[in-house]
C-alpha cells in the first residue's frame, strides 16, 4: 500500500485573501507531495507498509526519524486541508462550542490561547486543539510532530491544526506570522472540526 496525496475539496485560490493561491499550490503540490513520497519510500517493503497512518504515528518511536518527519508531514497536512474551507470562519456551534466554553471559558478565550500557542512556537511546527480524556487542550509541537505520536509531550486526538512552518505563510505574510494566524480564523471549517470532535468521542 502506498499513501496518496489527497485532492483538495476547494480551489487553490478559494481561500484568498487569507491564504494566497501560490502558497496553497506550492504547499500542496510540493511540500505535502514530498512528505507523501518520502513516507512511501521509507516504508516500502517494511512491516508497516500496510498500516494506517494513525497506527504508524502511534508507535513512531519504533521507526526512523524519516518516518516520524514524513509520516507527521503527511498526516498533518491532510488535516490542515480538511479543516479549512472557503465557507469557513465564524464560530462553532452545538456540542463543540459548549465544550470549548466549558474548557476555556469562552470562544474568545479559546481563540486567544490557540493564537498564542501558534505565535510562540519557535522555529517550525504546529499549534493544536486536541481532545484528550474527553477534555480539550491547546499546545504546539515542533517540526512535523503531532499529538497522535507516542513521542509527543501531550497526546490525544487532533481536532484542529495550524501549520506555522514559514512555508505556510511566507510568500504572503513574510515575518508577520501573527497576521497569518489572525486570518486563519476566517477559513476554519467548524463543520469539519465538529465532525472530527464527534468521531473522536
Amino acid at each position, binding site marked *: 500500500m502506498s499513501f496518496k496525496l489527497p485532492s483538495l475539496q476547494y480551489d487553490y485560490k478559494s481561500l484568498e485573501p487569507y491564504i494566497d493561491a501560490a502558497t496553497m499550490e506550492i504547499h500542496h503540490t510540493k511540500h505535502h507531495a514530498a512528505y507523501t513520497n518520502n513516507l512511501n519510500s521509507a516504508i516500502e517493503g517494511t512491516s508497516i507498509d500496510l498500516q494506517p497512518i494513525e497506527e504508524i504515528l502511534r508507535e513512531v518511536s519504533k521507526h526512523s526519524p524519516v518516518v516520524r518527519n514524513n509520516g507527521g508531514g503527511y498526516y498533518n497536512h491532510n488535516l490542515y486541508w480538511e479543516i479549512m474551507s472557503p465557507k469557513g470562519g465564524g464560530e462553532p456551534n452545538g456540542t463543540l462550542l459548549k465544550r470549548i466554553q466549558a474548557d476555556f471559558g469562552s470562544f474568545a478565550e479559546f481563540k486567544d490561547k490557540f493564537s498564542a500557542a501558534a505565535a510562540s512556537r*519557535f*522555529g*517550525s511546527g504546529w499549534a493544536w486543539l486536541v481532545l484528550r480524556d474527553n477534555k480539550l487542550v491547546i499546545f504546539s509541537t515542533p517540526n512535523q510532530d503531532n499529538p497522535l505520536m507516542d513521542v509527543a509531550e501531550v497526546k490525544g486526538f487532533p481536532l484542529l491544526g495550524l501549520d506555522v512552518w514559514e512555508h505556510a505563510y*511566507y510568500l504572503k505574510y513574510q515575518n508577520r506570522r501573527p497576521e497569518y494566524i489572525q486570518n486563519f480564523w476566517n477559513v476554519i471549517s467548524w463543520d469539519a472540526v465538529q465532525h472530527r470532535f464527534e468521531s473522536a468521542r
Partner: protein
Amino acid sequence: MIHELPKLPYSADALTTAISAQTIDFHYGKHHQAYVNNLNNLIVGTPYENATLETIIKEAEGGIFNNGAQVWNHTFYFEAFSPNPQASPAGRLLRLIESDFGTLTEFKDKFNKAALSLFGSGWVWLSLNNQGHLEISQESNAGNPLRKGLKPLLTCDVWEHAYYLDYQNRRADYLPKFWEVVDWKVIADRLG
C-alpha cells in the same frame, strides 16, 4: 547592555545573483532586527542584562537563548557574504579542508547534504574543534556550536525565511547560490 543591529556590510541589492534585495530587506531588516529587539526586552532584570552574546549562547535557556543566539547567528551569516568574494579558500584553511574532507568539492557536498537533511528550521555549521580539526554540524532552530565549545567558521541559514521568497521549497537550489557569495577571506580571518 543594549544590543544593536550591526550595519549590513553591503547594500541589500549587492547579492542578487544569490539572494534578492527583498529577502535581505526582510531577513536583515525584520527578522534580525526582531531578534535584537526581543533580546533587549527579555534580558531586562535578568542575570543576562549585561552579558555578551557569547555568554548568553553558552549559558542561557528559553527565549533569551533563542533570541541571543539568533542575533549572533544572523550577524555571522550575513558578514560572510560579499558582492566580490574571494571565491575559494587558500593557505591554511584550504589545507585543513583537504586534510579533513579530501577536497573542497567533497567538503561542499558534505556541507550541502547536512543543509538539505536538516529537518525544520536551523543552521548548518563549519567549525574548528578542540583537536584542531574541522567539523560540519547541524543545529535546530537557534542552535550554535559555541555552546559545545567549538569555534564556528561558516554557517548557512536553512530557516525557510532565508530562501523562501527566492527559492520557495527548493532549498537545493539555494545552496549552490549561497556558495557563490561566500567570501572565503572572511572565513580565513575567522580561523585566524
